[in-house]
């Protein structure tokens, strides 16, 4: 206190205080427990109740898990082996795993969806991780056709024709888009349809050129169906949602109102209703004899549903951007699509990530609703063929627990990725 006289107001510091280390905290488990578990009477009671609850749950679940039976041919077998002791009958999983995962997919072709699943990681990697080489995006573009060919089989000419259609449509679009966006867009669509139409005549339906064994859509089921629905619908609904969100902001009244009506209508209707529409009602409107795949109809419905929600999430992100960002883009001479692509959307999407992930996770779990319109996805398989069989009637916990675990792994993965992505994109240093 030598350099701080007590009664004098004027004060000049002559020596700079050296920085000192922070006070050494008392460390160790005891301190941690006192601060986090027993800091108050209420806190202590909650801690004790919590420990009791965990103990109760574990004392029931652990024997069930550890004492489980993995090898048995039916629930009666299980009970005999357990002989009165607690224990899960996990044999149903080892016995029926192929149904749970692949539905009624032909057993000797399991490698095909498995391969498609593995390739999916390569296809998504450059989209999810921007530091990978851009050339990998070529594979991403080809992947939908490869995956279709692998999962549904048939002649290789079908996916190739559809790829050619998209390619021709894209080329026509880039040629015409300079005149106006509408010319480019409709020109591209018309060209693609023309290619598919003409190609349809050239390619024989039953062509066996490099054909894989054709698999009917109704044989595709199990968790594979959930994955296909989730991945396809999300991949399509994200760009569609962006377009809807931008359309809703459009200055052109027609576009704006189309988007508003679409979004509000879809959001006002439960998904299950849309699925019933896909299943039953659409059939009335289609000309008799048309073979419009049920999976495709369901995909369209789920995609529209997710797109409407994603559009609203992104609209929130767009609204959160200060107007100055639009003006800065404008004042530099960027045109609408450039300023959207380079300035507005990257920021709006970043803000929207938590909301989009919310929709994505919800949508992925909602794919199990298709079991209600008698499609045999994971839940449909459990409720239908497996629980209805005399062998396994009654093994609810094991089966639904397995379903829950599968979904948890995937949803947790999505959520972890999104948190990682948010950290990556954090540049505002607030």
């Amino acid at each position, binding site marked *: 206190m030598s350099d701080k006289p007590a009664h004098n107001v004027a004060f000049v510091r002559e020596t700079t205080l050296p920085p000192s280390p922070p006070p050494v905290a008392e460390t160790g488990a005891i301190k941690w427990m006192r601060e986090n578990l027993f800091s108050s009477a209420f806190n202590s009671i909650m801690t004790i109740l919590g420990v009791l609850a965990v103990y109760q749950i574990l004392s029931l679940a652990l024997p069930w898990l550890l004492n489980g039976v993995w090898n048995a041919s039916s629930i009666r077998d299980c009970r005999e082996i357990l002989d009165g002791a607690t224990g899960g009958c996990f044999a149903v999983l080892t016995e029926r795993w192929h149904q749970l995962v692949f539905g009624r997919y032909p057993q000797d072709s399991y490698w095909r969806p498995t391969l498609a699943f593995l390739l999916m990681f390569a296809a998504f990697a450059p989209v999810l991780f921007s530091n990978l080489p851009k050339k990998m995006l070529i594979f991403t573009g080809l992947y939908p056709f490869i995956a279709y060919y692998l999962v549904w089989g048939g002649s290789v000419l079908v996916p190739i024709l559809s790829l050619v259609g998209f390619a021709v449509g894209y080329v026509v679009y880039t040629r015409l888009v300079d005149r106006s966006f509408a010319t480019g867009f409709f020109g591209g669509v018309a060209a693609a349809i023309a290619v598919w139409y003409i190609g349809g005549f050239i390619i024989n339906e039953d062509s066996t050129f490099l054909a894989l064994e054709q698999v009917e859509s109704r044989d595709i089921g199990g968790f594979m169906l959930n994955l296909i629905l989730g991945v396809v619908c999300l991949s399509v609904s994200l760009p569609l949602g962006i377009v809807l969100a931008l359309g809703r902001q459009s200055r052109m009244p027609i576009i704006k109102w189309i988007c508003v009506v679409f979004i509000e209508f879809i959001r006002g209707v439960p998904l299950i209703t849309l699925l019933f529409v896909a299943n039953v009602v659409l059939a009335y409107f289609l000309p008799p004899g048309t073979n419009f795949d049920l999976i495709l109809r369901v995909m369209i419905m789920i995609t529209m549903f997710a797109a409407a929600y994603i559009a609203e999430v992104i609209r929130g992100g767009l609204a959160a951007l*200060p107007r*100055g*960002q639009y*003006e*800065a883009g*404008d*004042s*530099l*001479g*960027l*045109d609408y699509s*450039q300023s959207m692509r*380079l*300035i507005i959307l*990257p*920021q709006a999407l*970043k803000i929207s990530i938590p909301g989009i992930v919310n929709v994505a996770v919800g949508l992925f779990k909602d794919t199990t609703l298709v079991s209600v319109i008698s499609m045999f996805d994971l839940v449909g398989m459990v409720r239908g063929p497996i629980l209805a069989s005399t062998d396994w009637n009654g093994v609810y916990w094991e089966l639904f627990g397995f379903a829950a675990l599968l979904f948890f792994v995937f949803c947790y993965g999505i959520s972890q990725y999104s948190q990682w992505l948010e950290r990556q*994109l954090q*540049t*505002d*240093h*607030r």
Partner: protein
Amino acid sequence: MAMTDDAIAHMDAKVSDEVAIEIENMNKWYGTFHVLRDINLTVYSGERIVICGPSGSGKSTLIRCINALEEHQQGRITVDGTTLSSDIKNIDRIRSEVGMVFQHFNLFPHLTILENCTLAPIWVRKTPKKEAEETAMHFLTKVKIPEQADKYPGQLSGGQQQRVAIARSLCMKPRIMLFDEPTSALDPEMIKEVLDTMIELAEDGMTMLVVTHEMGFARQVANRVIFMDEGQIVEQNEPEEFFHNPKSDRTKLFLSQILGH
């Protein structure tokens, strides 16, 4: 026009007869609110014009009309020989010739300083990336922050951000620069670094329209000061005359408020 020697000294040969901006009988309304009334203004190449006036008098609206951030309903605005119309191509061309600096900088927070500066040259001017980066570094050096090129805007101080915003505009090699209260959002100790940058720009002969209340800057740099009130140009004159011998009562009142105490 009576000019002091001082005023003549900085109204040098850089002001040419070439018209940069021509505004004729321009009117603008927000709904029923008549925000700009019968504006007539000719800006010659190389002029440095300071616009001042009370808050809400329409200064921002006026300069935002020049690069079509706001639409005007009556009259004609010609920028660099091109008349503003609703043709989008036309507007985008004018915008790429006219740089604008905002009160709140409006840098792109998701891009680095360098990317902020190269974005428009690459996408609008189609400059090769490498060349755009060289130009960007040139202008970042000019505003004295080349070492910040790889940081993000959020990591810079307000004064630094505003200088980046100036550099970003300069990278488009604009022929005209508009400034809307470039120092109003800054802490006092940062105002000078931004004003110095703008003074340098003026010395290089840039055509500048500056909305500001920095009267020191107006004295030193401007060759014309415009006073606006209630959407009209009330008075304009060269700075010495404007400050020492204001004609209109409203100008006098305004000057006494802003300079007085």
